[in-house]
């Protein structure tokens, strides 16, 4: 038997290592807080309702919304010196899909200063071929004629629009050079730093106000720009505007 143990000591050692690895892994889970980000799309504080409700933009143009989607990627919680980067962090928030408006993050416990994310899909994933998950081209957010993701999409109708069926359509994309519309969003957490405790659950409520698409930086009217569906100047101006649409409402600890 002893001879045998000697012979297979390597195997036993491996077994022991595996067991301790497993312990370490499970204790790792305990070190984390469960954080849910809930995105609420609004117009001037009113919850967005697709198709039915009419809203008024900053130029007194009335409009309804039929589609509202945007990519939230590379979610990062900032600490004093470093932070936590979510892996494979690509999320399509789609007003038409309730589940898509909730993003879960396993966050290592600690004090964090801000929540950051990219509004859009980073350049690399625009040039790396066929993707999956929320980046699957069947999500109808990928340009087939000019490879690249539509970072954000807003569609609806407005009496101010003179194009067919009084439509307005904004498909905002462009990932490189002067056409780049990627926006880094930084939302400060309450206080100068917020503590997330291990084993606890938190919900961060974030609103996105559609009315910012037409103002904030550049004044854009539906009457003058009913359709923007290619990279370029107007897409860039809209993205300068919508970079200001997010607001961290509150954090609820459970």
């Amino acid at each position, binding site marked *: 038997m002893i001879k*045998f143990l000697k012979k*297979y000591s390597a*195997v*036993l050692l*491996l*077994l022991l290592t*595996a*067991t301790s*690895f*497993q312990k370490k*892994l499970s204790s790792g889970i305990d070190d984390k807080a469960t954080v849910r980000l809930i995105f609420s799309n609004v117009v001037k504080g009113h919850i967005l309702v697709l198709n039915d409700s009419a809203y008024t933009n900053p130029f007194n143009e009335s409009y309804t919304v039929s589609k509202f989607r945007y990519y939230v990627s590379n979610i990062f919680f900032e600490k004093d010196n470093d932070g936590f980067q979510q892996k494979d962090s690509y999320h399509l928030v789609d007003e038409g899909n309730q589940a898509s408006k909730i993003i879960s993050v396993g966050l290592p416990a600690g004090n964090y200063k801000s929540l950051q994310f990219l509004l859009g899909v980073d350049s690399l994933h*625009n*040039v*790396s*071929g*066929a*993707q*999956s998950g929320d980046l*699957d*081209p*069947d999500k109808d957010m*990928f340009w*087939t*004629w*000019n*490879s*690249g993701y539509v970072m954000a999409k807003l569609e609806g109708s407005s009496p101010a629009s003179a194009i067919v069926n009084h439509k307005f359509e904004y498909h905002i994309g462009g990932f490189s050079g002067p*056409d780049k519309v990627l926006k880094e969003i930084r939302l400060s957490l309450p206080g100068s730093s917020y503590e997330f405790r291990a084993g606890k659950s938190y919900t961060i409520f974030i609103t996105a106000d559609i009315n910012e698409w037409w103002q904030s930086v550049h004044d854009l009217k539906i009457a003058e720009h009913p359709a923007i569906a*290619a*990279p*370029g100047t107007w897409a860039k101006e809209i993205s300068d505007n919508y970079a200001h649409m997010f607001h961290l409402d509150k954090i609820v600890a459970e």
Partner: protein
Amino acid sequence: MKKIVVILIAAFVVASAFIPDPYHTHKTGFHTTPLQLEIPKGWPAPYAIFKNNPLTEEGFQLGRKLFYDGRLSKDSNFPCSSCHQQFAAFATYDHDFSHGYNNQFTTRNAPPLFNLAWSSLYHWDGGINHIEVQPLFPITAPNEMAENIDSVLARLRKDTAYHRMFKAAFGTDEINSQRMLKALAQFTGSLVSADSKYDRVKRGEEIFSSGEQRGYELFKARCSTCHKEPLFTDYSFRNNGLAMNDYLKDSGRMRITGDPADSLKFRVPSLRNVVVTFPYMHDGRLYSLYKVIDHYRNGIVQSPTLDSSLRNGIPFTDKEKEDIVLFLHTLTDTTFLHDKRFSQP
């Protein structure tokens, strides 16, 4: 004793299942047969188009089946191969524009498909930045295959042969857009054409006739800046002096870059297999090689973005025109046009 060994090994196997795998690889024990992309002697290195898509026999065969399958189109009539015919070097033979769904036409001449690994951009305007995402365009274009990706996938999922082939290529029988596109890229990216008479002459296996040789010398002197050997294109975008198509108003590369300096610029096409890819130019307006030479002799339309090398056209005597065309005939790769590996499975 044996019993203990068995128990220990079993315990080890069980324990190893708990060791976290940082890359989430699926160890289902499936095996694929690796393939190597053929890189002809003397050619530049290809782009790493298979970097995230390891080329395998199983993936290639799945891509081949998909390429020839009408179910990728709305009414089943338009597989990729309806516009990309092998005997035309995977262009559409004798068509300025190709036919699509509901009696519609495409708006550009179907380019031939070969040596795609040596290009980083695709389409006449370079709008496609990766070989894997190219099929999304023809599949969803309302005047081509007119279908959406989810409907295509739903159709493929009804076919047990596809379940088998996706499993063989990717380890499980999950059928999704990423796998479909990667498999298609394995097929189209493997289409290498490098066995024309020109290639055999270069390899010292054959010699040019005197007319072909005269044509080759003319070609090197007057055409090879843009149609650079050995791929017979420099992959640049240039305005080669064609008047804007009145009907299509196609501004070419400018449509992608938005830059007026790119107006009327189109991808310089390879001249390999050029005899079988007629008609020529992005809108197929020139029906013969003679017409193409005539265009460069005396058809150049001046415009601000015209390529500087074409300001005065390219002079060719009638005799030289004959010789150039003789040379261009040596670029036909009949091995490629009849290669059974690339034909309908």
